[in-house]
């Protein structure tokens, strides 16, 4: 009997800022403010005098030198001086995590083994923070200081029992595994806040150090147990191998989740795979020297997803829907059903079919793998696109079918030149994503939208999910003649202007549906954020005690929708491509003339869509290991020094900050001011005893 145990502990502290938002992220604000504005107010007395009568005003100063930060002003709506915003104290998040795992394995009888394992993840986390009095803009200010704090605890335990049996009969090898597992996550939360710190001192930011009174309603507290989440599974697997030539493996799982209602807890997921080692066949014995191994693979399987919140299938009571009655302005408690329930909510299932071939050449120094796969997801768990007149937030349902099909290549080559060892590897994958059925009868749904642009992403049957949605443009009207000649002739011969209100300098929109006017029906697919190809390669070189390794990655064919500019605020700083705008006949055929309060030229269109393909040197590392002779004298088995860089070089046509943006879901490929990845240099040493 063998018993193993592992225990790990980690602690983390972090402070964060808002990213990828057009409403006041630090980077977004820096892009949009006028470049003439200085970080600090040039004339402090004048800036303070402007707000002299405003009782809500508390100046924000740089804590390092006491200078007053420039106040951007109300022309920028909610965009504020980003350095002022970053200088404010925020919340610090902390996490303590214990992960333990105990397992026991017992050999019951000949090849019959029983293994049980128990794992637990106990996490404590929370945040503590305080706000001091500040004024950034009339919508972003605090007239009282506040301290807030929150503590959470969660325990996830998992138990797994498996029984396995191996048997060999001549050239036939069998292996059978039966198992069962269960998991539960539960937790508690407690948090509170109070107003009016005795002194605005970060080191004393505790709720006990405040003077807010309970009877004034200044103290707030909340908390309780969190909804538990459970999973339970049964599974069985059989593997069969004949003489290392033919391989078969089949698995059946039955998984249950607490996220679904009674009768819908469980779903069954079978899968199987086949393999054929061609080179082990007798007819391949006389193969050429350089063909070391060839294997053909095929697999088919089903798996599931239950990653939604709890109780989507049943309506609970939701309190806090209050109203005020009476002269005394009494807040009276109201309750209503929490959601529109969907009793039929069940597991989302995907079916994946994969076929592949592996080659090994020259004694496996050169290997190549090619795979083709098709994955179909049925019953995707998404918000049902029901009308708002239903009067309640939209329910979650199993709607929609999606298909992903792709081709993957992997190639690696190891070789030696004199004393240098080279190891080069690369992979590339081609992906085609298609939404087969959105689950409603119109077959389309608009998703993200932005102020002044309208809808920017959309899903439609038969198209990649999601795609960018807007007008197609066809240059700029250079003069009135061009406006007058942009006409549409109907079948009965009448000719009308397609853009009758246009002036020279306006964008010429394409009349996609050919009805003679530009309106919402002319919006169409103008790009999408899914890359056609994603690839990477790494190169490792080793010479004596030196090692050099490089990892490159890139994508081809993805678009980025650059919506970092707020077109609904007239006074924002314009991006440099606006220097190439139309200012007279012949000056530009891409960007329109600038008009304050322009509500026509900058609606969602292909002017925003840019090529997001890139190639990036993700990681490069050079290291030197001291010769063993020297280090063994100090009882050190190895000492290695290294210098490395991350994100060192990027090649891309995208003129935004970073083409590797992480927006996903219905916003795939939309850049609202994503914080770029940093170039990191590191130096280090690694010591082994």
């Amino acid at each position, binding site marked *: 009997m063998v018993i193993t145990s592992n225990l790990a502990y980690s602690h983390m502290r972090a402070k964060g800022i808002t990213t990828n938002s057009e409403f006041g992220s630090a980077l977004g604000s820096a892009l949009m403010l006028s470049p003439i504005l200085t970080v600090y107010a040039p004339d402090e007395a004048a800036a303070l005098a402007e707000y002299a009568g405003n009782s809500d005003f508390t100046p924000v100063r740089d804590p390092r030198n006491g200078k007053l930060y420039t106040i951007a002003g109300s022309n920028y709506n909610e965009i504020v001086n980003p350095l002022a915003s970053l200088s404010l104290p925020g919340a610090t998040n902390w996490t303590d995590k214990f992960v333990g795992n105990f397992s026991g394995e017992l050999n019951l009888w000949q090849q019959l083994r029983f293994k049980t394992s128990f794992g637990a993840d106990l996490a404590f986390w929370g945040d503590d923070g305080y706000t001091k009095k500040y004024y950034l803009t009339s919508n972003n200010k605090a007239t009282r200081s506040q301290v807030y704090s929150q503590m959470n605890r969660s325990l996830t335990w998992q138990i797994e029992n498996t029984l396995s049996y191996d048997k060999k009969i001549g050239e036939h090898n069998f292996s059978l595994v039966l198992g069962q597992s269960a998991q539960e996550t539960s937790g508690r939360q407690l948090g509170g806040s109070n107003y009016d710190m005795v002194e605005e001192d970060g080191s004393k930011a505790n709720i006990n150090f405040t003077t807010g009174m309970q009877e004034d309603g200044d103290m707030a507290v909340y908390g309780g147990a969190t909804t538990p989440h459970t999973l339970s599974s049964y599974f069985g697997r059989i593997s069969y191998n004949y003489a290392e030539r033919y391989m078969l493996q089949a698995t059946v799982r039955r998984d249950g989740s607490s996220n679904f209602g009674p009768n819908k807890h469980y779903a069954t997921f079978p899968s199987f795979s086949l393999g054929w080692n061609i080179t082990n066949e007798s007819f391949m014995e006389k193969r050429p020297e350089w063909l070391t191994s060839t294997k053909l693979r095929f697999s088919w399987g089903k798996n599931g997803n239950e990653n939604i919140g709890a109780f989507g299938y049943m309506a609970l009571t939701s309190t*806090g829907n209050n109203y005020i*009655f009476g002269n005394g302005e009494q807040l009276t408690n109201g309750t209503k059903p929490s959601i529109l329930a969907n009793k039929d909510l069940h597991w989302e299932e995907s079916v994946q079919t994969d076929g592949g071939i592996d080659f090994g050449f020259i004694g496996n120094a050169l290997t190549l793998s090619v795979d083709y796969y098709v994955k179909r997801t049925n019953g995707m768990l998404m918000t049902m696109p029901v009308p708002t007149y239903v009067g309640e937030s939209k329910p979650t349902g199993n709607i929609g079918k999606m298909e992903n099909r792709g081709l993957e290549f992997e190639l690696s080559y190891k070789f030696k030149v004199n004393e240098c060892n080279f190891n080069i590897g690369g992979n590339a994958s081609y992906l085609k994503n298609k939404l087969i059925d959105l689950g409603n*009868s119109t077959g389309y749904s608009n998703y993200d939208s932005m102020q002044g642009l309208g809808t920017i992403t959309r899903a439609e049957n038969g198209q990649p999910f999601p795609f960018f949605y807007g007008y197609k443009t066809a240059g700029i009207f250079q003069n009135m003649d061009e406006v007058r000649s942009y006409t549409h002739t109907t079948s009965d011969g009448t000719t009308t202007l397609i853009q009758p209100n246009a002036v020279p300098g306006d964008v010429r929109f394409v009349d996609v549906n050919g009805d003679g006017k530009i309106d919402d029906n002319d919006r169409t697919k103008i790009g999408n954020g899914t890359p056609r190809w994603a690839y990477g390669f790494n190169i490792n070189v080793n010479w004596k005690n030196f090692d050099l390794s490089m990892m490159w990655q890139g994508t081809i064919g993805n678009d980025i929708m650059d919506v970092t500019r707020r077109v609904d605020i007239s006074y924002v700083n314009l991006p440099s491509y606006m220097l190439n705008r139309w200012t007279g006949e012949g000056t530009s055929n891409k960007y329109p003339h600038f008009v304050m309060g322009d509500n026509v030229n900058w609606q969602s269109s292909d002017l925003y869509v840019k090529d997001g393909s890139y190639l990036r040197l993700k990681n490069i590392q050079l290291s030197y290991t001291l010769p063993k002779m020297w280090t063994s004298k100090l009882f050190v088995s190895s000492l290695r020094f290294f210098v490395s860089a991350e994100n060192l070089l990027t090649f891309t046509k995208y003129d935004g900050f970073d083409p590797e943006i992480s927006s996903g879901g219905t916003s795939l490929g939309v850049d609202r001011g994503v914080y770029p990845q940093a170039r990191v240099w590191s130096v280090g040493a690694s010591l082994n005893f």
Partner: protein
Amino acid sequence: MKKKIIYLGCLIALLLVTSCSDSFLNVESPDKESIDEYYNSQSRIFEALVAAYGPLEWFDYSFGEYNPILTMSDIMADDVWVGGADRTDNKFWHLMANYEALPTQVMTNAWTTCYSGINRSNNVIYYMDDVKSIPDATKNLYLSEAKVLRAYYYTILWKFWGNIPYYTKNLSYPYIQPQSKADEVYAGIIADLDDAIKNGGLPMKADGSEYGRVTLSMAYMLYAEVVMYQNDASKYDTALQYMNNIISSGKYQLVSKYDSIWTKSGEWCDESIWEINYKNEGAIRSWGNPQAAGGTVLPRLISPKDWADGTAGRDNGWAFEPVRKETYNIFEAGDTRRNATIFDASKYTYTKRYEDTGYFLNKYMARTGYNAGQKADADLNYGNNLRIYRYSETLLNAAELLVRGAKGTGDAKTYLNMVHSRSGLTDVVDATIDNILQERRWEFVGEGKRYWDLIRTGNAAKVLVPDTYGYRTNSWTDKKKYLPIPQGEIDAAQGTLTQNNY
């Protein structure tokens, strides 16, 4: 071997202990109950009724949009301009004001808020059957309140959009309701009001601690508003009867000073029939939770930009809904309503924004101290109640119905002059339709009634025409009576919604 059997036994026991039955996967919420068994007592069904009142407070800001419900019709009329920073600030307000709204550029908050209210009102009626041991009188009272609230929400939808989905039982899968014609919606509203008025046991006026609840007088006023907007002469007699019921109850009377209506102490004065309640003391409405009951953002929307807080007892704002210079001039000399309605900011320093005239809507401007004591976001927590129905409208309704030929008691001229003389004017006017409409114009600037009055009397096309400033360039036509239905609804309704012919 024995050892192994013992081990095996222990491990099998472990397996059995952890063997999962279905009950392992049935979890209970630690802080919520299932709704199906929840409404089983009077206090709980009252909670459902309170939830039906909740959406009344959402119009001014929710779902990312400002749709203060009185303002949204006033900007389409001729007393005020839209204002703001420029034509892209609350762009759909500017488009609506110039009768060029689009399905993708039209107000949607009011649509969502009204249907949320309708959903909650329907729930009160649906779950009432589960309630045990509730006295019949209370049961009828709650049902009537829910019906009147439902009628009120549908009235807003009906006036702005006309042809809307109408349902009295909440929808189930696939959540589609066919569109009803405007007249059918009108019939549904009247049916709800008839039922509530006859069977409800609604009190004529609420007690002090219940101000804000639906009352019989409020139901009467809603009935008259709807009947008169529809120009349904067959119901004029009943409407007049209802107005007379309010007048003869003796519970309401005109206050002597018109400007006192709009202050904090004027909330729920003798003249006030129904208001939407907002509070400031201890209010917790915030940008992150704009549906929390608290204050209102309307005063902040309509006050002058960069105004030094406290000057002349007013605070700063975002300069929407500036009052037109022409509106200042419609008042006769000696009419106290002019200064109560219009605040003249021209002598003070402030930043002039788009369509500035120097005049602001005094009735709902941000008065200094009216958001004092709030605990979240100061902009959202002004305590000004929204005055929906006042006794002066009862008198003017009665006068107009009498002149239009309704049969009943009362003298139109007396009613009209009660309102006329309260304003400080000393002359005596005759009861003609034009005089009554003029009195309504003077009395209700900024109270969301002017636009509907113009439409129902057939004067909209004559009066709502392009102006000399170039702000409004289109004329009102009959097609503009109903706004475009929001595009998101057309898309989600799977072909069952036909767009209005705007």
